[in-house]
C-alpha cells in the first residue's frame, strides 16, 4: 500500500512557466490512489485536487471501471484494484453508447448496473485512475503540480516517446538529489511505482 511510501522514489521535475499542459497526457496512463474500499465514484472524484462538484457533474461525461461503463457516480468502487478511466463527452455512436446515462446505452454489450453498490470490506484499495482528453488537459496540471503516484513503466514510456519534451526540463530531482535524465530512467527501470511531481518554475519546489 502507498501508506508506507518511504521506499518509493520521489521524482520532482521543474519545467518552464506555462508548459505544464505539455505533460498532462502523461495522465492517460493513470495515477495510483489509495482510498477506502467503501468510497463512491463521486467521493473519489471529489477527493482529487481541483475537482468541484459542479466540474464533476458538468465535465465528466464518460466513466469506465474495469472496462465497463458507469452511469451512476453515487455507486461504490468495485474490487481490490480497480482501473477507472474518466473522460469528457465523446463523439460517434460508440461515444454516445458509453456516455453516462445515455439514451444509447441500450446498445452496450455489458451493463454496469450489475456492479455492487458498496463493498463490505474495510481495507483500502489501490485505484488506477486514468484521465483522458479534456479532463486531463483541464485538471492534469493541478494533479501533476500536487504530485501523484504512478506506475514507473508508464512514466518511462512517456519519456521515451516524447524525448524532445524531456530535453526541455529545467531540473530533475529524486529524493531531493539532482540527477540527469538517464539517471531518472535508471530509477524508473528499477522501481515499480514512483511519486511524481511536475511544477513550473514559478512555483517553488
Amino acid at each position: 500500500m502507498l501508506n508506507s511510501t518511504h521506499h518509493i522514489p520521489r521524482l520532482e521535475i521543474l519545467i518552464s512557466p506555462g508548459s505544464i499542459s505539455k505533460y498532462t497526457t502523461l495522465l492517460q496512463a493513470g495515477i495510483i490512489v489509495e482510498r477506502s474500499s467503501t468510497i463512491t465514484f463521486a467521493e473519489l472524484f471529489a477527493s482529487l485536487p481541483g475537482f468541484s462538484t459542479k466540474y464533476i457533474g458538468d465535465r465528466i461525461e464518460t466513466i469506465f471501471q474495469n472496462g465497463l461503463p458507469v452511469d451512476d457516480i453515487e455507486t461504490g468502487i468495485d474490487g481490490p484494484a480497480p482501473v477507472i478511466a474518466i473522460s469528457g463527452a465523446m463523439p460517434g455512436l460508440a461515444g454516445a453508447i458509453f456516455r453516462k446515462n445515455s439514451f444509447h446505452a441500450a446498445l452496450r454489450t455489458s451493463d454496469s448496473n450489475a456492479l455492487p453498490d458498496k463493498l463490505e470490506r474495510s481495507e483500502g484499495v489501490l485505484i488506477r485512475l486514468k484521465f483522458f482528453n479534456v479532463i486531463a488537459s483541464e485538471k492534469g496540471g493541478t494533479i501533476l503540480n500536487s504530485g501523484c503516484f504512478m506506475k514507473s513503466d508508464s512514466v518511462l514510456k512517456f519519456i521515451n516517446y516524447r524525448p524532445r519534451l524531456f530535453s526541455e526540463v529545467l531540473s530533475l530531482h529524486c529524493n531531493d538529489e539532482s540527477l540527469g535524465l538517464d539517471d531518472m530512467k535508471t530509477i524508473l527501470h528499477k522501481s515499480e511505482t514512483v511519486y511524481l511531481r511536475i511544477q513550473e518554475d514559478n512555483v517553488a519546489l
Partner: protein
Amino acid sequence: MADKIFRVNMTDLSTSVEDVPADWAGHGGRGLTSTIVAAEVPPTCHPLGPNNKLVVAPGLLSGTPAANSGRLSCGAKSPLTGTIKESNSGGTSAQSLAKCGCKALIIEGLPKGDAWYSLAVTPEGVTINEETEVIGKGNFAATELLSERLGKSQGIITIGPAGEMKMRSANLSVKDPDGHLRSCGRGGLGAVMGSKGVKFISIDSKDGKVEVADMDKFRAANKAFAKALVDHPVSQALGTYGTNVLVNIINESGGLPTRNFTQGQFEGHEQISGETMHDVIKERDGKVKHNCHKGCVIQCSQIYNDVKNEYKTSGFEYESIWALGADCAIDNLDHIAEADHLLDDLGIDSIETAVAIGVAMEAGVIEFGDGEGLIRLLTDEVAKGTGLGRIIGGGAGDVGRAFGVTRVPVVKNQAIPAYDPRAIKGIGITYATSTQGADHTMGYTIATNVLGVGGSVDPLSKEGQVELSRNLQIATAAIDSTGMCLFIAFAALDDETCLPALIDLINARFGIALTGDDVTNLGKSILKTEHAFNQAAGFTNEDDRLPEFFSMEPVAPHNVVWDFTGAEIDTFWDF
C-alpha cells in the same frame, strides 16, 4: 437558377444538361445518389462495366452559408460490395457543384479506347477533355499540378493510381480548402471512376450562387444551428483532439479491435491516442484544428507534421489510425501517418486497405507490429500494382481468400471498422444490416427523440437494440441527404434547438414546410430504396450477417461473443 442534372456519357463523349425529374426534386446528397442509382443502374450489372453509373451530388443545403453543409455524396454500384453505395466527403466540391446549379452529375458508359479524360464542370454544363499530364500521378502531385493549371479556387475530385488500376478499394479524393485531400473512402468508387476513364473532375462555379427562398429565416435558423454546434462539448473535444480522441475510450471498453480482431485492447494505445497525437502536433507546429470545408464550425481535422515539422497528413481520423495502428499492432504514430499519407496519395481506402493488411499479417505476409513493413507493402506492392499489391487493393475479403485466412472481418465484403461488435453489440447490428456493407457511419447518434424514432420496444432487449439501430439508420440516411457533416449529430442529440433549426434551414432554403416526420419518412424511403436495389442484385437476409468467428471466438478482456441470431437480425427490415 434552377438546379439541373448534368449528365456525361463516356461512350460517345457527349454531355447534356437536363431538368430534374419530379421524383428526384426533394432529394439531395445520399438520397439523390441512391435514388438515381436505383432508377438507372441495373442491379446485376458489373460495377466496372458500361451499365454502372457514378453519381456525384451535393446535399440539399450545400453551397448555402449553412454551417457544416459542405459534404459531397458519391454513389454507384460498389465494386467492393456489389451493393448500392454512397460515400461522402468534405472538401470544396459540394459547395462548388451546388453553386454551378448542379443537383447531380451522372457519369455513365465506358470510353472505347485507352485514353484518359477529365471533366470540367461550370454553371453552363460539363466539357470532356482528353488528359495526359496527371495520368499515373499520385493525388498530391495531381492536385498540385491542377491547382497551378486551373487556379486554386476550383473544386477538384480525383482518383489516384489505385483508381486508375481499378482496385476495388480505390477511393475518390476531394480537394479541401488548403489544397490537401479528403476522401469518399469506402466501397471502391474510385475504381468506378477509373473504369470510365476519368482521372479528375474540376468544378468552377464562377459567380454562381445558391438561391435561398427566405434569407431572413435562413439566417436566423443558421445562427441557432451554429450556436448549438459550437457550444456542444463533443464539438469542443473534436476541435481539440479530432476523432482520434476515441482510441483511449474504445480501448478502455475492450472494443478496440487489435491484431486482426483477436483482442479488444491494444497495449500500444497510449502512443497512438488522440491525446498523444494532439501533443505531437503542437510540438511539431502542426494544427490541431482545421476545417475540411468552408463553413465548418467544428473543425475536427488537423495537420500532422513529421519529425522535421513538415506536412505529412491531415484529416487523420480515428478509424484510419485504429486500422493502421491497433489492428496491425503498430504503435508508432509516425509510421501510421506515413501510411495514411501514402494511402491518400494512392487514392485507396485507409480502413479497407489497413484491415486487409491486418489479415495479411495474420497470413504471415509481414509480422504484426511491423510499421516499416506496412509502408513497404504500400510503396512496393500496392503502388506498383504487383500481384500482392492488387490482392491487398482488392480489400480484406480478397486477402482472406488469397491466403486462406478464416478470420476476415467483413460484412458484404466491406471491412468492419474500429469498433468490435462483440464488445459493442449495437454497432454490430448496424454492420450486419447496413445497405452498404460494414460501415460505422450508417447508424449514427441522431436525435431520435426529436425525429420521433426513439423506439417503442424495451431498449435493453435484443428486439429493442435492433429497433434502435434501425431508427438510427433511418435518421442517418436523412441527414446524409442534407450535405451536413454527421458530426452535427452530437448537438442534435442534446440540444433541443439544433435539429429543428436544421429543418428550418431546409424549409427556408426551398420555401417549404417540412416537419420532423417528413425527415423521418425521407430516411425510411432512402433505406428501402437501397435495400430493394440490393435484393434485386441478389442479396438476401443471409448477407446481413457478421462473419462466424465473431460468434465462435470470445474477445478479451470481456470474453464476449456476438450472439444475435439471424432471425433476430432479420426483424430489422420489418418497417
